[in-house]
């Protein structure tokens, strides 16, 4: 073993990750080389000094600033599953709101024009259903959604945090049922 190899593996030696035969080769070299013995002692001392050296810590009030930022910026979790079900990515709304709103708008147009598309049939206008517009569809769909307790203490339902469980439940295929719910309500 030469000095280069010894110093190249001095950390492995210190961390006792050498095979027994390698340890013997290292020890033999150490016995005959003052330079490497000094390097070994120096590295051990340096590592020990680093281990007990001062750590830099965050300043006081860090948590408050962080939680305040999460609240002020209304930071929401981003789901890796069912991404369609998250965020304001459809017309600036969450998909469930967007689809429900679209359904309500479609129904208004349909009822105003007097054509309700159902299996290619033309439906007659039913004036009595128009009273239903006073009660916006999205609100009805989402009423009863429980707000989860939050360290961020969000004010509104739309700003509440979503758990992955909730987000996974919202899939593109789910919207059909909700649109149907709006239709059922109106009729």
């Amino acid at each position: 073993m030469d000095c280069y190899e010894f110093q190249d593996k001095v950390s492995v030696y210190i961390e006792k990750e050498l095979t027994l035969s390698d340890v013997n080769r290292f020890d033999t070299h150490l016995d005959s080389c003052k330079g490497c013995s000094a390097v070994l002692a120096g590295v051990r001392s340096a590592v020990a000094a680093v281990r007990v050296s001062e750590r830099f810590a965050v300043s006081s009030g860090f948590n408050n600033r962080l939680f305040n930022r999460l609240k002020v910026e209304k930071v929401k979790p981003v789901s890796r599953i069912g991404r369609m079900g998250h965020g304001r990515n459809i017309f600036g709304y969450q998909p469930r709101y967007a689809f429900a709103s679209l359904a309500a708008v479609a129904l208004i147009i349909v009822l105003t024009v007097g054509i309700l598309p159902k299996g290619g049939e033309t439906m007659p206008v039913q004036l009595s259903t128009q009273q239903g517009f006073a009660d916006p569809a999205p609100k009805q769909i989402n009423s009863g959604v429980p707000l989860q307790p939050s360290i961020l203490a969000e004010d509104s339902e739309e700003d509440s945090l979503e758990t992955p469980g909730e987000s996974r439940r919202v899939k593109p295929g789910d919207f059909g049922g909700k649109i149907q719910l709006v239709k059922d309500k109106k009729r």
Partner: protein
Amino acid sequence: MPEKVQYSDKELILRFQQGDELAYVELVNRYRDRLMNFVYRYVGTRQEAEDIVQDTFVKLFQKKDYYRPISEFSTWIFTIASNLAKTELRKRKRRKVSYLSQLGMEEKDFDIPVEDTTDEEMVGEFTESQIQNAIQSLQLHFRTALILRDIEELSYEEISKILDVPLGTIKSRINRARLQLQEMLKQVHKDRRTTI
């Protein structure tokens, strides 16, 4: 969460994924100083380091669902912090190049300032400022690997993942960082002897 129950990091992140925000708070408490100590070695100023640590926890909040229990939570959170710190350094480098080119000067590495430690308390055979100066004098890729190993006591495998560098390279970097540190501190000893 009931008090005095010591949850592992993995248990905490899984609880947070299920909506337990107190688990998030506990993770913040566990990791804020460790991340600060690491990120500070990258960027060299407390304010920037703290901003990056805050950004890291915002990402944790936003992307909790991306964590998979196949990896250590520490690896995951340190990777986020490391990437944010690298991005900050790249931005800084661009700003510097643009500033220096306006002045017609050539690019030179940023000196990371070591805070003046007037308190000369001895840590073993060296003063705190001597150790910090020596650490900060290391090149960035040596310094970050050394901090993760000798201060954070992470495994070589974890460090390799966090810094996105092959395992063999990490082992070599840590060894070389220690050898350089040993050289610098040896010099401190020599200087001390000549001044006495």
